[in-house]
């Protein structure tokens, strides 16, 4: 056994990130590490690469106890890591990136010829013979940069290679090239830890897999003997209790927005979506499946590069969030701390923000108007605060979410996208927000609800669209909306769908 981790425990203030986790890795295998957000994958990797120090447990490499204190020490021990965002310097040449920190010098001057020769030597066997090591890294595509990063990591460490979401920004052809490189390295006897959200890739590439959930080790198994359904069950676990379906799924209203073939290369495959007045559309899928990407494209955060959206008045411009807002769209993003609220501004200012932006700075909303607006929403949404002048950053998560909602409600959008509106808020507030969603749709607003909690989707949605590997793969309506069907749709083998990631 090349690597053996046992009883690994790591706590952060307030959370137990890893609870007695075990993991092992043989030389010459690809071992996939899987889990949803907060499962503990990153923490495990970071303990292994010296970013975090473990509290308890053992890490044995080649039978020796190790406890790397820095990424450098881990590297010297033989553990190299390649992250999703390429951690090389785009403004340096390929050769400089590959040999960085180890260039040979003579009289303090770098021997350029030797550096290039070393770099070319390091790239041999990766199928990158067309790469000119004297050119800047930025002139090459992300896939090639990724392979160069792998070449550097392998040359520097050479025993274990950790690939953290390496394919997240690659297309199908590039992914295949990368996989050839990885298989080649495996055959050379490297131990490879592969972290990915893409189940198809896990099945295609890995020999074994380990699932973590909530900081605990759930299962380690041979990939060939694991079914997709089992895997998804392992990853989602106890959250899979049968949820109560929405009491009354109402008859759909008239069609308000029609989206045809909307998509963006590398983000989300083209999809169709028809939005009716007063309906809640749920978007289900695993982390990284294309849920947020769908929302980003619909709201112009990453403008679509193909397809159209139309309503009764003709085509809708989705070129920017500003245009989308003008078209009556609203978007409460997943990460409200960085994308949704301005923590230092007051509740009043946060609520008035978007409305003011739409009215233009020439016609300011008077302070008393803002005040009335804020007080109104504090009452109707039951935002728990002493007054409207309190900084939003001082509120609890649920109340912050309500402020984000209030901001959009003040705009009176016809189509509101809510990405994980209940993430990180307590149970009581959770129910209130779901209730609020129901009330809003009664007034004719349409909502796209994104959530990783299936029971929440089932409780609130009129229909559920399932996304996987950045494509919309099926739609469930009425009685079909139940946990098992969603899971089955997520776990369906790709061959049936014919869409490779």
């Amino acid at each position, binding site marked *: 056994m090349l690597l053996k981790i046992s009883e690994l425990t790591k706590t952060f203030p307030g959370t137990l990130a890893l609870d007695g986790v075990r993991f092992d890795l043989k030389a010459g295998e690809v071992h996939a590490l899987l889990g949803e957000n907060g499962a503990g994958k990153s923490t495990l990797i970071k303990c292994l690469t010296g970013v975090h120090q473990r509290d308890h447990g053992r890490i044995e490499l080649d039978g020796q106890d190790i406890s790397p204190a820095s*990424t*450098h020490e881990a590297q010297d021990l033989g553990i190299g890591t390649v992250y999703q965002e390429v*951690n*090389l*310097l*785009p*403004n*340096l040449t390929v050769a*400089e*990136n590959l040999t*960085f*920190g180890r*260039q040979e*010098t003579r009289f*303090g*001057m*770098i021997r*350029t010829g030797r550096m290039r020769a070393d770099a070319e030597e390091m790239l041999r066997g990766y199928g990158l013979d067309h790469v000119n090591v004297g*050119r*800047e890294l*930025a*002139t090459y*595509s992300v896939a090639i940069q990724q392979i160069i990063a792998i070449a550097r990591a392998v040359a520097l460490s050479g025993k274990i290679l950790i690939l953290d979401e390496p394919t997240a920004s690659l*297309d199908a052809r*590039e992914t295949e090239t990368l996989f050839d490189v990885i298989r080649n390295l495996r055959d050379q006897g490297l131990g490879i830890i592969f972290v990915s959200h893409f189940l198809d890739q896990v099945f295609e590439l890995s020999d074994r897999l380990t699932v973590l959930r909530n900081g605990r080790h759930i299962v380690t198994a041979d990939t060939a003997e694991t079914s997709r359904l089992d895997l998804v069950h392992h990853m989602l676990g106890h959250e899979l209790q049968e949820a109560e379906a929405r009491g009354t799924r109402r008859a759909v209203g008239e069609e308000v927005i029609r989206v045809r073939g909307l998509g963006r290369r590398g983000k989300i495959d083209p999809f169709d979506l028809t939005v009716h007045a007063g309906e809640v559309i749920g978007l289900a899928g695993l982390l990284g499946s294309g849920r947020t990407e769908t929302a980003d494209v619909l709201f112009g955060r990453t403008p679509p590069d193909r397809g159209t959206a139309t309503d009764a008045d003709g085509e809708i411009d989705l070129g920017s969030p500003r245009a989308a807002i003008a078209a009556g769209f609203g978007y409460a993003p997943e990460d409200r701390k960085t994308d949704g609220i301005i923590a230092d501004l007051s509740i009043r200012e946060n609520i008035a923000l978007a409305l003011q932006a739409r009215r233009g700075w020439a016609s300011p909303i008077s302070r008393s108007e803002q005040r009335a607006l804020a007080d109104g929403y504090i009452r109707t949404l039951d935002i728990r605060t002493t007054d409207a002048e309190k900084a939003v950053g001082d509120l609890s998560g649920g109340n912050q979410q309500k402020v984000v909602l209030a901001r959009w409600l003040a705009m009176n959008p016809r189509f509101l996208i809510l990405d994980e509106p209940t993430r990180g808020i307590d149970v009581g507030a959770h129910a209130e927000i779901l209730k609020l969603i129901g009330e809003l749709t009664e007034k004719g607003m349409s909502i796209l609800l994104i959530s990783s909690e299936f029971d929440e989707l089932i409780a609130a949605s009129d229909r559920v669209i399932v996304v996987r590997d950045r494509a919309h793969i099926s739609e469930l309506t009425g009685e079909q909306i139940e946990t098992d069907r969603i899971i089955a749709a997520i776990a369906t083998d790709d061959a049936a769908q014919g869409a490779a990631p």
Partner: protein
Amino acid sequence: MNARVLPLCATIAIFLLAYLFCYIQFPAMLSTRVIGNLLTDNAYLGIVAVGMTVVILSGGIDLSVGSVIAFSGVFVAVLLRETDLHPLVVFVLLLAITSAFGAAMGGLIHALAMPSFIVTLAGMFLARGAAYMLTIDSVPIDHVFYDEVLQDAYWRMPGGGRLTLIGIVMLLSVLAGMVLAHRTRFGTAVFALGGGEHTARLMGVSVGRTTVQIYAFSGFMAGLAGIVFSIYTGSGYPLATVGTELTAIATVVIGGTLLTGGAGFVFGTLIGVLTMGLIQTYIVFDGTLSSWWTKIAIGLLLLLFIMLQKGILLLGRRRRTALG
């Protein structure tokens, strides 16, 4: 062509075109005399701009250098007046002080994780204040070593032009800067910092040490520029070289270095300095234009280069997305 050398080529092309334009109007401008004067008159600016180039390549900025030059001139002048120290000893003392001053700023920038803009702004006031503490008057330098060696040493070029000692010091500084930035591990670390501090750290750059070294180097070059300026003017004056830091930044940008760091050439900075000098020389030759036209020309050139850089960035991004 590699997009990285495009700004440098543009810089050189603009300089040559400008020179051609001047030559057509005033054929006398193509002489070793004019070239020699160009180097002598802009020696201090060239030296300080080399230090500034390294700072900007790392993604920082050093606003203190103008004040440090003034301080250096005053320090040298006052010490030569008050003591019997040999000028060379005074130079060594001064360079030690300005390097340490730069190193201290670099240390603060790293330790406090403060923008270099703020820390060196404080340094700018400190150095200017220190110059005033030494004297408030212009102090003439009256030393036999200055008069007979430093100010009188030159090499007569073919055609009668004088390549003065300070001109040579400037050219050597540029050469040293080129080697340091493009041919040493320190230089690679500087480029790495300019490319992204987080990534640079992951790749093994000792960020703190490199930052200290960068600003120490800039301080050293500012001190050297101060010495050269004192030789050029034969005096020390605390109000001298106000705004030189901004002129130096302008020459670096006109020289094709990306103001956000990570890309550029020290040699380009030399061309930037010469371009500025050329504009001034042209105005002198013309005789009717106000010297403020220099500022306008520099402003336009700066604007041109900033737009050029933006254009290159956009072009590169588009090409990459096209390649996928």
